[in-house]
């Protein structure tokens, strides 16, 4: 009799534990509220930003500005994205700008205030800089 009682107790307990295991919420349930809040914030923040100009137009502006001050822009095709290249979602064109250090740096400084230009590796030797960059846009 006691055995039957004990058995029932044990089986009931086991059943409860087993079903509880089955009824666990998926991963991410604990942080869903925070994640949702954060993502809402992200979207709201980004929605406030005006869309960028088209990439092609930005690229042409850079080439034209470089041409104007007499420095050379050579297009480069990035085959594999890495830490030294643009990784975002926008359309991008990359290139190398070559010329006098002061002229190139001044030009880039000015252009970065208006256009989305990301700068990467560079080499300076004998007053000449070779600077990798990526121009992005929609």
């Amino acid at each position, binding site marked *: *009799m006691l055995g*039957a*009682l004990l058995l*029932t*107790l044990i089986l*009931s307990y086991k*059943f*409860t534990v087993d*079903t*509880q295991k089955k*009824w666990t*919420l*998926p991963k*991410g*349930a604990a942080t*869903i*509220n925070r*994640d*949702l809040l954060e*993502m*809402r914030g*992200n*979207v709201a*923040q*980004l*929605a406030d*930003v*005006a*869309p*960028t100009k088209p990439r092609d137009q930005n690229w042409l502006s850079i080439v034209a500005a470089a041409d104007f001050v007499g420095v050379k822009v050579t297009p480069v095709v990035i085959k594999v994205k890495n*830490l*030294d290249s*643009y*990784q*975002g*979602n*926008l*359309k991008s064109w990359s290139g190398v700008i070559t010329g006098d*250090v*002061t002229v190139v*740096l*001044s030009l*880039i*400084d000015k252009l*970065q*205030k208006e256009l*989305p*230009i*990301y*700068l*990467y*590796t*560079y*080499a*300076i*030797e*004998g*007053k000449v800089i070779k600077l990798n960059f990526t121009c*992005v846009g*929609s």
Partner: protein
Amino acid sequence: MSSISHSHDRESSEYIQIGIPIVIDGSEVVVVRDSIGDRLAKDPNGVVNQVLPAGSDGRPAIFIDEADISAMRNSYPGVKVYGLWQILFENGRVKLGSEVVIGKTRRVGGNYIRMRPETDFSDAGNILESGEYIGERIASLKNYDLNEAIKVDLAVLGLKLPSKPAYSRRELYEQFEGKKRRRWINVAGICALLVLATGVYNFQLYNAYNQEASIFKAKKAELDKLTVAFNELKSTRIEHQPNDSIPIGILKGLSMLDPGLKTAPATEKAASSFAQGQSHSLITSPAFPVDPGKVIPGITTQRNQLLQYEIKLNQAGGGK
């Protein structure tokens, strides 16, 4: 004669009689012969039931023959059965003191208790056996004159019924089985309750889980939608406008200070870069007279053997 037959009338019985229903203490009962001492208990053929355990004064236990109980059940169903000596001892009617004690339950004869010969006849521990006699003699004790025996008062008046009537083996077994069955029914009930409680508890947990799961599902769907929207926004908008004006300013200053400035030879791991997390490493002309670190803020310098200054920009590349 008429007075004797009157005394044996069952309705108005004043004395205990064996084997017919009589009224004791307001209840109709049947008194049967019972047996005190070892004789019946040791009988290998008889089935006997103890109705009164041995007394603390040494009196042996009292038994009733199963057959007697069955016979009374057949004749008087539903009437409680008690043993003669059981009733008498429980009511304190038996006064020991002679070798034989008799209860005259019939017109000619009755029941007797015999003590062990040549012992203390007042000691209940010395009871040898009980039995029935017919006439004026006990069969096994022919020489004993029953007039010398102590006679037990058999008057019904003032008798109390013993706490436990006699039951046959079968009745005792059925009582035991009945008790067992009731206990099992109770246990089964408790088990059923447990199972029910477990079911209800789990059902509630399941409901709670379902509710939470559906809330989570809705939130997850919203999050996924927002993530898609966010990625779409990211393909047309820039989160942070790139701005490298600080390192550009430093580089401009350095190149004006030293026209022979060059970047440190690029290795696989470390080329000068504006990219996030990368560093800027530059070297001045040999034997450069001025420590650029003293002129331009935001850099760290170190002189090497060629008297060049090795320069590192303190700030890592701008945000990408």
